[in-house]
């Protein structure tokens, strides 16, 4: 990891997301809405990796990922490493693990689903396929493939 992190300047404070599925980095930036937040972002794509053949890496300066952001990350790239950097040192290290279900993270694509119509209703989806992400609404049963997931 150290070699790869040296490819660009190390950051003083912030988050380094490592071992992202190759090619997935841009989608993570978009979904987590990391861009245009006033912090410096570095995206490395297709970095040679020991674990996989290649990976993406994202460095976010002066910002630590929130719990809900880490959960979204887990959906988009399970197995990614979240390193919290404080004063150039890795202060925390977590592996993003795919949960069995997610609540209040995405919207159901069925417009007639009760979760889209009841005031104050929450959304919950079960993860039904881990390889190519597929989620299923626990209310109406609608299955949604990764490309069609609308995150909240």
């Amino acid at each position: 990891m150290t070699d790869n992190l040296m490819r660009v300047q190390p950051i003083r404070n912030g988050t380094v997301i490592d071992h992202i599925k190759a090619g997935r980095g841009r989608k993570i930036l978009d979904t987590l809405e990391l861009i245009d937040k006033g912090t410096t972002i570095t995206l490395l794509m297709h970095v040679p990796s020991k674990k996989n053949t290649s990976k993406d890496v994202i460095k976010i300066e002066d910002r630590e990922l929130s719990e809900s952001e880490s959960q979204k990350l887990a959906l988009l790239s399970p197995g990614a490493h979240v390193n919290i950097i404080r004063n150039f040192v890795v202060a925390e290290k977590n592996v993003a693990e795919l949960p069995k279900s997610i609540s209040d993270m995405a919207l159901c694509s069925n417009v007639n689903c009760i979760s889209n119509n009841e005031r104050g209703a929450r959304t919950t989806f079960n993860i039904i396929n881990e390889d190519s992400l597929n989620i299923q609404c626990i209310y109406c049963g609608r299955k949604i493939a990764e490309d069609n997931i609308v995150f909240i």
Partner: protein
Amino acid sequence: MKHVVSISDLSKKQILSILKRAKELFPVAKGKKKSKSLDGKILATCFFEPSTRTRLSFETAMQRLGGTCIGFADPSATSHLKGETLVDGIKMVAGYADAVVLRHPQEGSARLASENSEVPLINGGDGAGQHPTQTLLDLFTINEEMKKLKGLNVGMLGDLRYGRTVHSLSHALAKFDNKLSFISPDSLSMPSYVTDDISCEWSSYNSINEVLKDLDVLYVTRIQKERFPDLEEYKKVASAYIINSDLLKNAKSNMRILHPLPRVTEISTDVDDTKHAAYFRQAFNGVPVRMALLEQLIGGSK
């Protein structure tokens, strides 16, 4: 088993136990024997959209077992229009009754309601979603008519794309090792999200003639006009999927026709008097099946 939201909430064993009890309750359902097994119990029927058969058969079932019913057949008479949420409404009704039957136009409403109900909640149909008691009565009817529930070749005809009854029934029949034959125009064929989950043998046809002689049961559904962008197309398709007594000459002599009703033109009235017609018995079977389910959910069984 607390709530019954989807047929998949019930195990094979639970389904068979309901069918067995329904058979025992048949004379009570017919009014030939009396039962007080649900004496003093109250069933709330909350119908946020109209349904004659489901509501009336639940109310009959409850009253035949000595229980009583409260509820509404039309949401315009409730606080729903004042903006009350479903969850608030269910919490309130659950305090008044021993079980709740919910019919609601939105998918997933029954699951949400069950999360908020202290008493057993039965899904009486949620939009294009689930309608588990219909599936139970369909299974009961097949078992009664054919004297078995496995090893049958069951044809499903008509609107297989939007018809929720055929979706749930396909799942349930697959559990019991049957062969399914789906007969529909391409535009209304069984969706892959249903066939992907079916564990038994199945095949698709465009014409009933290809498969009729092999069928033990034919489940007919209504092709709805509103599914077609133009009327001519609807007429063409609908007329190609009509069952009449002439056509049935090629069917097995003990083949039975089921239909969730109401029917329009998809089964000619000349079929009604043939030995194949089982749909009116099927509609009645909703009563003993719902009785058996109510007994199991709100106690007082035996």
